C-alpha cells in the first residue's frame, strides 16, 4: 500500500468512526438548529483527527492528501451531512494558500488552519450583471462577492480581484472584520451558512507577493478540487439514499404487501444503483485527474461534475418519491440529502457551466 492509499484508508476509517459516534442524525439536528450552523466542538475534533491538516505537507504535520484521500473524507461528509466548512476551508481555502501564499504567509497561517483556530472561505463569485466587479488599488479592495460558502463564519477570506496596477486576476487575503467590509449572512437551502460581501476600500493582502501571475491557474485548480470533492460528497449521499430507500421498500406495506415487491419499483431501484456505480466511477476518475495537465483535468472533472449533478438529483428525486410524504419531512434524512445535493449543484460551478467546460476542453 502506498502512502496515498494509506492516507485514504486512514481518513475513511476515522471519518466513519467519528461520524458514527458523534454525528448521528439527531446529533446533527442540534447543529442545524444552532444559529451558528456549525459545531465548534466537532471542528476541534476534526483538528485532533488530523483532517484539518489533510492538505498540508508532511513536514508541516499534514497528510499531504491527494484527491483520493480527500474524497475518502468527503464521502462521509456527504453520508453524514457534516455541517462544518471542510470543503470551503480545508480543501479550497487551504489549497489556494498552499499554491499562492508566500513562505511567510504560509508559515503564519498554516498552523491556525491545522489547529482549527483559522477558517478560510473563498470569495470568488460575483453578480451576473457585473455590478460588483472586485478590484484592488494600492492595497485596498472594492467590489462585492456573493454566495460565499461559509463566508459567514470564516476568520479570513481569500478574495479574487483584479489588480489595478499589474492587471490580471490576483488573490487577496481579507479580514472580514476589518473596516470597509460589509458581511450579509444567511443560510443556504441545506442549512449551512453563506455570506454576501461588500468591500469599500478594505485592506487586502496579496497572496503571491512575487507576482508570478499564476493566480488564474491556481483558481482553476482549486475549483477542480472543489468539484472532485463535491462528486465524492454526492457519492456518499447517493449511497446513503439508495440504502435507506431499499430499506423502506422492504418494510413499507401498502395493499397487503411490501411496496418493494412491485417490479416497477424494483426496476427503479436498480436504475438508482446504476447511477450510484457511475457516480463512483466518475468520482474516482475525477480524483485521479487532479494530478493531470490542466486541459485533461478540466474535461474529466467538469464532465464528472455535470454528470454527477444530474445523476445524484435523479437518485434524490426517486428517494423522495418512493418514501412518499415522509420523504419531504424534516425528520427524515432523505430531505436533508436532497437539499445538500441541491446546494452542491449550485456552488463551485453549476451543471451547465461544467457541461460547457467539458465540451470546450476537447479530448
Amino acid at each position, binding site marked *: 500500500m502506498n502512502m496515498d492509499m494509506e492516507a485514504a484508508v486512514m481518513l475513511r476509517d476515522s471519518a466513519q468512526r467519528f461520524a458514527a459516534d458523534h454525528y448521528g442524525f439527531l446529533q446533527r439536528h442540534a447543529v442545524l438548529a444552532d444559529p451558528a450552523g456549525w459545531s465548534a466542538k466537532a471542528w476541534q475534533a476534526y483538528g485532533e483527527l488530523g483532517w484539518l491538516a489533510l492538505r498540508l505537507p508532511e513536514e508541516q504535520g499534514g497528510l499531504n492528501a491527494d484527491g483520493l484521500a480527500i474524497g475518502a473524507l468527503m464521502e462521509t461528509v456527504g453520508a453524514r451531512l457534516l455541517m462544518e466548512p471542510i470543503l470551503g476551508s480545508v480543501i479550497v481555502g487551504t489549497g489556494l494558500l498552499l499554491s499562492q501564499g508566500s513562505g511567510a504567509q504560509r508559515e503564519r497561517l498554516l498552523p491556525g488552519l491545522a489547529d482549527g483556530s483559522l477558517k478560510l472561505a473563498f470569495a470568488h*463569485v460575483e453578480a*451576473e*450583471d457585473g455590478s460588483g466587479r472586485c478590484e484592488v488599488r494600492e492595497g485596498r479592495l472594492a467590489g462585492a462577492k*456573493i*454566495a460565499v460558502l461559509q463566508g459567514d463564519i470564516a476568520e479570513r477570506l481569500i478574495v479574487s480581484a483584479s489588480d489595478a496596477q499589474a492587471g490580471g486576476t490576483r488573490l487577496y487575503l481579507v479580514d472580514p472584520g476589518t473596516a470597509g467590509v460589509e458581511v*450579509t449572512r*444567511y*443560510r*443556504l*437551502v*441545506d442549512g449551512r451558512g*453563506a455570506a*454576501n460581501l461588500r468591500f469599500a476600500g478594505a485592506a487586502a493582502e496579496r497572496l503571491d507577493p512575487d507576482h508570478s501571475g499564476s493566480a488564474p491557474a491556481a483558481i482553476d485548480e482549486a475549483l477542480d478540487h472543489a468539484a472532485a470533492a463535491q462528486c465524492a460528497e454526492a457519492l456518499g449521499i447517493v449511497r446513503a439514499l439508495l440504502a435507506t430507500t431499499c430499506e423502506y421498500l422492504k418494510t413499507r*406495506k*401498502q*395493499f*397487503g404487501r411490501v411496496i418493494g415487491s*412491485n417490479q*416497477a*419499483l424494483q426496476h427503479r431501484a436498480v436504475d438508482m444503483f446504476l447511477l450510484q456505480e457511475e457516480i463512483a466511477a466518475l468520482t474516482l476518475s475525477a480524483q485521479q485527474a487532479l494530478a493531470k495537465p490542466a486541459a485533461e483535468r478540466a474535461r474529466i472533472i467538469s464532465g464528472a461534475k455535470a454528470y454527477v449533478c444530474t445523476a445524484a*438529483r435523479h437518485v434524490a*428525486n426517486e428517494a*423522495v*418519491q418512493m418514501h*412518499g*410524504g415522509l*420523504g*419531504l*419531512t*424534516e*425528520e427524515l434524512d432523505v*430531505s*436533508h440529502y*436532497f*437539499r445538500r445535493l*441541491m*446546494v452542491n*449543484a*449550485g*456552488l463551485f460551478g*453549476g*451543471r*451547465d*457551466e461544467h*457541461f*460547457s467546460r467539458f465540451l470546450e476542453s476537447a479530448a
Partner: protein
Amino acid sequence: MTDAIREARARSERLREAIRGFYDRVLPDDIKTKSRRHQVLAKSDYVRWMRLLHEQGWAIGHWPRECGGQAWTLLERFAFEDQLARLGCPWIIPFGVKYVGPVIYTFGSAAQKSCFLPRIATTADFWAQGYSEPGAGSDLVALRTEAVLDGDHYVVNGQKVWTTYAQWADWMFCLVKTTRDAPAHKSISFLLVDMRSPGVSVKPIATMDGYHHVNEVWLEDVRVPAENLVGEEGAGWTYAKFLLENERTAGAIVGMAWHALERLKDLARESRSASPRWRGRIGELELRFMALEETAYQAVESMMRGTGHGAEASLIKLRGTELYQHIAEATIETLGVAGVAYDTAALHAGGLPPLGPDDAGGIIKDHLYNRAATIFGGASEIQRNIVAKTVLGL
C-alpha cells in the same frame, strides 16, 4: 363539434376574460405581490381570496344552480383553474368548495346541506381533509381510524396524517371505519368532525421548505354527533371515490406549469450565463408543455362528450406534475447561486431573498414543496396503476 361543446368553449373564453379583468381590477395588490413571489399566505389572506372569488360567483361556479352555483361544464371548470394559475394567483383552497361541498350536496342530508353548504361557499368555515393515515396512504382502504356508535354519537379514535392546513381548520371530513366485520371497502364511513371537539389535537409536520403546510391529526375519544355521518354507514368508500374524482380535475396544474415556464423563459433571457444550449433545453420544456396543454384540452372535451377512456384526469395529473417539477428544476439551475440561498424568515415576513430576483425564495420554496405534487392526491405510481387497469386492461 357539438353545439354543447361550442357553447362551453364560448362560455369558458368569456370566463377567462372576466378572470383577467378581476386580476387587474379587483385582486388586492398585497395578495398579488405575495402570490407572484410565491411567498407564504396567511390564513386571513386565503380567506380574503376565497371570498373575493365567491363574490364573483366563482368559488362554487361548478356547483349546481339549486345550491347557488353556476353549473359550470368541465371545460369552464378547467378554464377557471387554468386561468387563475396562469396569472399566478393563490391556490384555490379546495377542501370546502371542491371536495366536501359536492359530497354534501350529492349525498348529504337536508340538514347537512342547509347547515354546511352556505358556510362552505363563503369560507365561513375552513375545512381539512382527513383521509391519509400512517399505514394508509396510497392504500386508503387500509385505514384504521375507528368510529364506534355510542347512543347518538360516534366515538372516534385514530390518527390522520398529511392533513393540509389542519391548524386552521374548523371542520375536517374524515374517512373512518365503522365496522370490523365487513370487507374493507364496505366498512368505511364519511364523517364530519368539528375540530374544536375535545380529543382532537393537531401536530405540525415540518417539511423541507421550512414551512408548516401539513399536520398529524390525533383523534382520542372524540364524540361526533351521529347526524354528522354523510349518507349511509359503510358507503364512505363510494363518497371518497366520488371526491377523488373531483380532486383530480386538475386544470390548475396546466396553468401552474405555464406560469412557471414563462417565468423560466424570462429568467433565462435576463441571465447572461444562459448558454444557447441551455435555451435549447428550455425549448424542450416548452414543447412538452404544448403537448400537455393540447392533450389536456382535448381530454376535457372528450370527457364532456363521454367519448374518453375514463382516465383523462390521471393523464393530466401525471404529465402536468412531472413537467412542472422539471420546469422547477430548470428554474433553480437558471437562478444559479440564487437558487440555493434560502431565507425562510424573509419568506414568511414578506422580505426579499438574500440573492436574485424578488421571487427567488418563493421559487425555491415551491420547488421543494412541489416534490409532493407527484405524491399527494394519488401518487404517480397509483395514477399509472389506474391507467394500466382501466384503460389498457392490464
